[in-house]
């Protein structure tokens, strides 16, 4: 898997996430302009997934700084093909500044790590988990993102391991 920066995703955060997940950073940045919707002033998340797949042949995880949406929802924290090879997440609504609070780099990094792992789970076919502390639990608000842990519950962890092993032999 490649970690692909989109637009002005911060270099330093990208490096730290790469180090913590062991996923190497991709060679070039994806321009979010292709997915920009001027009426909603947001990026079309599904359109960005298409762009990521055009740029990269293997599994790719996009890291965006712009606000993401899908047509029926006001926003999404991320999106993934389920199962598939492309996924992405955005830090736009993970920043404390979005909620009118002073910035917190460490909190942002931990939130981004959770969203990255969450989308990676979907990419390997995992649906949302009913265990609120599992990283695969559904989180449609920042409070829910903060409530969960950074890792998978034992059941999701086992399923992920099985699916990733199976994927290697596909």
């Amino acid at each position, binding site marked *: 898997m490649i970690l692909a920066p989109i637009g002005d995703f911060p270099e330093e955060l990208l490096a730290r996430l790469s180090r913590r997940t062991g996923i190497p950073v991709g060679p070039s940045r994806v321009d979010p302009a292709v997915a920009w919707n001027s009426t909603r002033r947001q990026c079309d998340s*599904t359109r960005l997934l298409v762009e990521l797949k055009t740029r990269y042949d293997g599994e790719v995880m996009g890291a965006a700084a712009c606000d993401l949406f899908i*047509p*029926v*929802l*006001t926003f999404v924290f991320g999106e993934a093909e389920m199962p598939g090879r492309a996924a992405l997440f955005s830090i736009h609504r993970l920043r404390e500044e979005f909620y009118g609070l002073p910035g917190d780099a460490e909190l942002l990094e931990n939130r981004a790590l959770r969203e990255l792992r969450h989308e990676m789970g979907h990419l390997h076919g995992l*649906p949302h988990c009913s265990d609120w502390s599992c990283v695969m639990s*559904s989180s449609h608000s920042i409070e829910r993102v903060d409530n969960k842990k950074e890792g998978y519950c034992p*059941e999701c962890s086992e399923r992920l391991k099985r699916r990733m092993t199976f994927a290697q032999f596909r």
Partner: protein
Amino acid sequence: MSEETLSILIVDDEQVVRDSLVHWFTEEGYEVDSSVSATDALAKLAGREFDLVIADIRMQGMDGIELLEKIRAEQLDTSVIVMTGYASVETAVRALKHGAFDYITKPFDPDDLSVVVRNALEQHRLKRENRLLRQQISEDHASLTELIGQSEAMRHVREQIETVAGVDSTVLIEGESGTGKELVARAVHRLSPRRYNPMVVVHCGALTETLIESELFGHEKGAFTGAQYRKKGKFEAANGGTVFLDEIADISLKTQTDMLRVLQEREIVRVGGTQSIHVDFRVIAATNRNLTEIVKDGRFRSDLYYRLNVFTIHLPALRDRYGDVPLLATHFLDKYSKQMNRKFTGFDRSALDLLIAHHWPGNVRELENIVERSVVVGHEPLVRPADLALARSPEGADDLSIEAVERRHIIRVLEDFAWNQTQASKALGIDRVTLYHKIRRYGLKPPAKPVRA
């Protein structure tokens, strides 16, 4: 992960909306399907059940409200959420008035959508659970308290019920009218793995050929005069449960052919319909007639008989287990005394004698009716002979032949001496061996102590 995968049907004429929502709900762990129009949605709903339908209000052709009306009219067991691109109080009120669970405006806040859907599904689950529990409580009551009897024959029936309940085979219950065939069917269902699904009852004898077809297989709208809506048949309504076909001998040869096909294929076609629908059910059939003879006469298909006659439970007539009469009579006396707020404590000696000696052509049902009446007309605390409206029957208490009188007299004396045969023979003025032969000749057995089944 949730234990049960809930199903959602998305109905919207915009592909992008369908795709986004299907993707979103798949991630949420639901089983999702989509329809491009209300007509397509109704076709899908005819083929299978969905827990929730999320439909757009504005669609070409039939709109969301009309779809909602049809779902409600056909009494489909599904919750509906309507969505629209334009927020207006008027539309929201219209949707809610037509029975929508809720109303949401596009684009949705992800958290709002998640909460609305979770609430709708929770309400759907509670409604279904409530219905099943109500049914189960009444079934528990019926099966556990009313299968009364300590006679050998009733012990055997209970053993048979326990043996067959766990295996999914067809059961045939034979017995005269009023012996409690439906109670046995309910007990089998109640003890089977299908107990959390419904048991539906079809009284075959009460229905004409046209009615029974529509009752069993359901019908499409307009299939016949008066068929204003599509209706599910009993086999479909059983939905993983049990279908109890009472008085099976009364169905016509044509319906027998249709029924044989359903039992073999596990598929039905509604009257006036063309689509085959898969059905999952267990059959328990009952008859008060001798099916073998009806098969010989050519009025009952032998292949259907063999399909039904996998495991047979024979219910004894009450006169063949007269020792259970005091138990049953006391049980019904308790039941009706409580119901009518009366204070009966039992039967006086001669009333009980009358009950034991009666021939009971109407079986347990007749006994129940007679005890119920005695609770209405009798004087507390004991039921007396005058309170019992026993019908005259040639072999019953009114039978004045020497044999019948002797039988009743011997029973009474044996009861008086708690079945001590030495003391009873002394009182009767005959020797023990003679009494022993008479007991065998009249098929008398000591009544067991009152124990509830």
